[in-house]
């Protein structure tokens, strides 16, 4: 299998950067999931789709807008009414879903190449993200597992909280390098490490 090229490559510098002498408070990395798919249910078919997600991933989605969860390998969250993003370390998620999401339930769109997943973690993750997005990152407002759709200027982003101080940000591939550079820049004041 031919390896996928990361859009971040020339700007992806492993190591500590910025004001790190006192220790890094941010860890940045690209999670490079093997598959990213978007699922969308026809009105009234949301439950059937959620059950299809459970069949394929084993993840039981909680109720409610933006609900989601992650088991560290597979992640799923709602980002719009009846619409979900699912990511998996392994490839082939779209094909797996195509078997269970029948045309009567909804549609499956493979975005494995089209979205880049960037992970930001550390005690200052909320602080750095607040520089970009006008949404409330505090834990009570944005619980672990949940997803949010928002934008930073023209950069559309889906964000899933995958830990108390860890977020996975899905951005359009073409914007990924530009966003990554901005994220690194914004992390300089607290010190960051690229892994």
């Amino acid at each position: 299998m031919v390896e996928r090229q990361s859009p971040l490559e020339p700007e992806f510098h492993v190591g500590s950067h910025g004001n790190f002498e006192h220790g890094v408070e941010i860890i940045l990395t690209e999670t490079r999931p093997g598959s990213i798919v978007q699922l969308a249910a026809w009105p009234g078919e949301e439950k059937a789709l959620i059950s299809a997600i459970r069949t394929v991933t084993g993840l039981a989605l909680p109720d409610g807008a933006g609900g989601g969860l992650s088991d560290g390998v597979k992640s799923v969250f709602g980002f719009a009414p009846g619409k979900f993003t699912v990511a998996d370390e392994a490839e082939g998620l779209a094909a797996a879903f195509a078997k269970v999401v029948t045309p009567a339930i909804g549609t499956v769109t493979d975005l494995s190449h089209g979205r880049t997943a960037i992970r930001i973690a550390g005690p200052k993750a909320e602080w750095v993200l607040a520089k970009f997005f006008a949404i409330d990152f505090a834990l009570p407002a944005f619980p672990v597992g949940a997803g949010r759709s928002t934008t930073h200027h023209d950069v559309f982003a889906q964000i899933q909280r995958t830990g108390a101080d860890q977020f996975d940000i899905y951005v359009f591939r073409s914007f990924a390098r530009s966003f990554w550079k901005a994220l690194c820049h914004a992390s300089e004041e607290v010190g960051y490490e690229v892994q």
Partner: protein
Amino acid sequence: MSPRRTDTGGRIDRLKTIRFTFDGVAYTGHAGDTLASALLAKGVTLFGRSFKYHRPRGLLTAGVEEPNALVTVLKGEVREPNIPATMVEIHDGLVAISQNRFPSLAWDINAVNQLGGKLLSAGFYYKTFMGPVIGPLKGTRFWMVCEHFIRRAAGLGSAGSAKDPARYERMNAFCDVLVVGSGPAGLMATKAAADQGARVMLADLEPRFGGSANWSDETIDGAPASDWARRTVAQLEGRDNVRLLPRTTVWGYYDNNTLAALERVTDHKEQPGKGEPRHRYWAIRANSVVLATGAFERPLVFPGNDRPGVMLAHAAERYANEFGVLPGERIALFTNNDSAYRTAVALKKAGAAIVAIADVRTELSAEMRKLAEEVEAEILAGHAVVATEGGKALSGLKLQRFDMANGTLTGDARSIHADCLLISGGWSPTIHLASQAGAKAEWNAARQAFLPPKPTQKWIGAGAFTGSFSTAEAIAEGRAAGLAAAGGTGTPTALPIVEAVPGDPDPAPVFEIRAKGKSFVDFQHDVTAEDVRLAHREGFVSVEHLKRYTTLGMATDQGKSSNIPGLAIMAEALGKPIPEVGTTRFRPPFAPVSIGSLAAERFGDLKPERLTPMHDWHVANGATMYSAGLWYRPMIYGHAGETVEQAYVREAKATRESAGIVDVSTLGKIAMQGPDAAAFLDRVYTNMFSTLAVGKARYGLMLREDGLAFDDGTTWRLGEQDFLMTTTTANAGKVMQHLEYFLDVIWPELKVHVTSVTDEWAGAAIGGPKARQILASCVTGTAVDNATLPFMGIVRGEIADVPVMICRLSFSGEMAFEVYSGAGHGTHVWEALIEAGKPHGLVTYGLEALGTMRIEKGHVTGAEIDGRTTARDLHLDWMLSKKKPFIGSAMMDREGLIASDRLELVGVIALDNRPLNGGAHIVEEIDEANPHGSIGHITACCYSPALGKHIALALVKGGKARRGTRAHVSDPLRNRFGPVEIVSNHFFDPEGTRMHG
């Protein structure tokens, strides 16, 4: 040198010496000093020259409202003008200079403006620059010459032109309660709200929290107020639910409790920390807001009230108690209210002699008389200051008996020797944010002030902001406000006990002493009481007009010190009470805001940009990149020594002769899935798509609802219910929104999902006579011959072990294919195609060659689909289906849209063999002297290697009928005139034999 540093007291650190320069002179100060306090301590009294008259000016205040002492701070090449010296915290290496003086602050040539004061009165510019002048320099032209010099003489600091290397950031914040102002009211509110468990933010524009507690001589719970404030802040600092923002000015109050604030993060540091921004722009969304912004003391208006050495009473208290600086040794006070007596007590305690207290009131309370006696000051009740003496510093003042009832002055003037005159004209609550939030302020006759209006948004006021000027009231109101803002009820515990100098909060209604000489209302803009009356005499009766005509309360001051005195004088002139005259609405920003903080991270290198999967390959292989919207695309792949034209001509020629390849990944791509996708496409496009076979593509045209052309592109049927729509690069976002709108709002019954997959696919278009051969040599899993892959056919296969989708379609007019692969494999496939093309002379080509070949073919793009053209104008009427309605079909046949003289697409050939220019006009007759008679314009142009001519596409009136006729290009801007021939837009291979093969 009368001002001096006291030996003890104040919140400065006398053990830490800071070195800085002002106007090139080296000074020292202490940690905790502002530029104002440090210079004042060194005996500097002259801080600036006034706006119009260049009068010497000193410190009037100690805070953000300072109108006189505006300085320019230099950091390397960057200069920041108009910063109040009272807001500049000194640090080692600080370089500040004074403004609006030439050649020096002490000796200013333009001070002669004072002698011609009448010339520069209210409305000077309006009157001056309109009048006719007789002679050769008549009219405004003469004044435009003069204006240059006048503007140079009248003004504030000048902005620099060096690039600002500082970092600016934007922060988004959310909280339950935002407290603005950290005086006793703000601190109590913060504590009360935090105790309820609310998420609280506290912002104060000063570096030190505490507000008046930092300089009042009061005690709270038995300790000095400043100690109480420090203790309270220390308690708040340790709490997770409290964010403290010192040096943060909340400058805007917008809808839905969205507030804007500016945090000055590193201005007070010699060097910012690594990655630390200079300023942070905070966008704060607060559930509720506590406004504890305090009050501004007002000056009194009397002749010579602007002389250095005249200062607001509380400012002197601040300098003495907060910074350990005495503004004078022999101090006189002039007041219309009780608060100045407290000042007298404080300054006496700090070591100054209080020579006299002049009070416009005849009846003084026993308490005030007692205070005056305590400070050993002579009481001059029923007196007013009518003049001040001295040059660049105060030496004395003159007083007369004053009758408050009618404003008359009687008796002989009496002189008093003093080096400092402290004035107090009462207090105005700082209601700016409440006013911005949307409601009208209400006049309170007792306080002689505008009080905050009833909230129209979720805010609660506390302390001096509400007109409650005592600390005890501030503490009680602050706690209540914090509690209410957090939605708590709380059990009433004992409030901190305040010990303070007593005083009546209500001033006498005296704003101006009318005597001979210039009496300043707005110090910053040099607006005098007489200017206000002049404006009235000239017919300005509305307060909004008054403001604009006299410039009262404009610029950085925004009426902080001048608002009420100005209104009072206007009201008197109008013979109306102040509330009937009304006040101006305060607008954001409350205080000046750096432009950098607003631009923040969108600026420069951090501007979002979009890169195609093959971007790095293009750059590594000599492409000159070109920004197209947010995208970066290769313009040309130039060889050494080639011009842009030579490069694109070579690329286009090689493509038509053998083969060329271009990155088309930027085309908008939308996955359209669902059982109703075909039906939806029939409604969206002017032509039919439901009849399209799986595995085939079709060119489609979309109209807007009003019948004009919107966008074009090919749509591929990948499955029965699965389409891939492509759009132009520029319109991808707009088309997506268009589709979503119709699916969500107009036809919710259609089962169609649309998803942007632009970034999922890398696209390479390979075209030319050798294109098929090249593909055949590298594609596996499918044939690419005419039978398997006919024109507009789609096949799937592999290139270099990567799955690809190939559609045979052509923009260049050649036999061409678009090869799509997963974006992460884009470069891999691209390189494989390049490798396969090597034996066949394959070239890479950029946007210029792409444009050239499309012009030769007469294809339209956004330059022609410009929002004004119809399908017919572009000769695309063959695409307008008559079998079905579609978006725009009902409106496209309107009279004006089918008129015969509309601009229609044509081709244009330069007959003089010279280059044409986009935007140039087409005319029937050339008239170089007086260009006129445009019949259309050029939309795109190039040198065509296929034709060996300079050609263009143009939109020309009745264009089709003009084919074969001559016209002229008229481009006066670039001085390009010449004959052209109008032809069909299909210059090259109009039958399409090349692409059909």
